[in-house]
């Protein structure tokens, strides 16, 4: 199945939930609405024509200027059909929660935990949603958000240096 056929088949199956399908550099990226994410993922996983049995990665992108600020990105691969697909959905900051896909792919457990840790997106029905790379008691926000400073929080500039002549 070519990428165009794959995209059009998804379009036919989910005329409402599918927002857009983009093909670029040989990668197919399908954006769905948040409420349809689990349904589409289940279809990709279970349908014999799709058979995306392998989870590649779960990632997230922060777009601070957009109304729906965060983008959750799933990437799947079909070992039998040798095909990749990227499934994306958008969530607003005020209510950043999406359905977890741990019931379909077991590997999603750690990957979603990482997204939660780094971007602060919560996953509904996730069995063990805790921070994974940062310490459990870390309260200074989510490091990969764009408003998290890239070069420290400025406290280094407040150091008082001794005058060289006074030493």
């Amino acid at each position: 199945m070519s990428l165009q056929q794959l995209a059009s088949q998804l379009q036919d199956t989910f005329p409402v939930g599918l927002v857009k399908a983009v093909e670029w550099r040989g990668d197919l990226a399908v954006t769905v609405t948040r409420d349809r994410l689990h349904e589409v993922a289940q279809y990709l996983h279970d349908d014999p024509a799709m058979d995306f049995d392998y989870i590649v990665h779960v990632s997230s992108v922060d777009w601070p200027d957009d109304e729906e600020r965060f983008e959750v990105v799933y990437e799947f691969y079909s070992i039998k059909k040798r095909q990749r697909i990227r499934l994306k959905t958008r969530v607003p900051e005020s209510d950043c929660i999406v359905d977890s896909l741990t019931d379909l792919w077991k590997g999603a457990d750690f990957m979603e935990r990482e997204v939660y840790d780094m971007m602060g997106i919560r996953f509904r029905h996730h069995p063990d949603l805790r921070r994974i790379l940062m310490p459990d008691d870390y309260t200074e926000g989510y490091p990969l958000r764009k408003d998290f400073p890239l070069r420290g929080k400025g406290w280094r500039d407040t150091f008082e240096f001794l005058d060289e002549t006074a030493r």
Partner: protein
Amino acid sequence: MAFEDQRTTVYKVDPAHPESETLPTLRTEELLLNMGPQHPATHGVLKVILELEGERLVKSTPVLGFLHRGVEKLAEDGTYHQFIPHTDRLDYVCAMYNNFAYCRAVEKLMNITVPDRAEYLRTIVAEVQRIIGHQFWLGTQALDIGAMTVFFYCFRDREILLDWFDELCGARLTTSWYRIGGVERDLTSSLLDKLKQFLDYFPPKIDEYVIFLETNRIWVARTKGVAVISAEDAVSFGLSGPTLRASGVDYDLRKAEPYSAYPKCEFSVPLGKNGDTYDRYWIRVQELYESVKIIRQCLEQMQDGPIMADVPSVTLPPKQRVFTNLESMIQQFKLFSQGFDAPPGEIYCGTEAHKGELGFYIVSTGGGKPYRLKIRAPSFIHMGAFDHMSRGYMIADAITLFGSYDIVMGECDR
């Protein structure tokens, strides 16, 4: 004060005889044991909380992040070229393959075709790195189980290749030899000779490692049938590389999505049957033989030619020209200070490193820096299956399980 010595009290609790209820019953509880983060067998700073029933593992919870350095955040601060040395520090045992995977991802984003000779050079060095990685793995895994001899033999042969890297790029571990669009420098005749010598020297040594391990009854008993994972579960957990292929799943990106010079070489992908630690070992040993085969074929097929793609807006000028030619100097300076202008878009590119699928997901909004760079690190994803694979086995098997993943914390925690 009199103590009741409980150790000498003999309790006989027999459910068939109700009178035994009057006897005191043994109190049992699960024992929590912290393994790591300062434990030599955890291959770095990994902590695992083990819940034990006797010596059996009931549940294990990996605690990651002791080596988290925020590499993905760092990537957003530098240009594409500047990120190459950071990739060395991901999987610090096999820096070359990280460079390779990253450069391939950026080349996909920029739509650059790498010249033929560079592709062969990349494949040769990547396979040398695979040999180093598997030797390191074999040595440390055997050491974890207590077979110390193999460790010394592997490291002796690994030294030859590390010295070869030293001559190639001036560093043994943090190499940064790959460049976007090609490689940094060509193989000299001395390097070629040394590599050919090594290829003749090495295969008998692999046989030697195998004899050492497979005639060791303790080692065999501790690897066969230990930490079994079914093919279905391995796929569902997203395992990759030898860890996945040990369960019999035929998934190798070198074959599935051929890249570089791999489609021009003939090699086979060994598959396991049982999905246990022994099969994961066996696959890696077979891959050593295959790597030697691939390098031999590449050396035979390689023709003279450029080693860097000619795309001046993206690729670096040859180093000799930078010091003698004004335009090349300016090009080099601009590429490093401002970077090149990447088109807006997003790509994912996976590469078969020796641990598994090492992938980079890059989101670009134009400009010289990546907007978001996500690293798909096989070690991290393998840790996700740790609890599933360790349940029901002994504490000592947990150690061999880390070993069989070939875990490196620099990559796991990023």
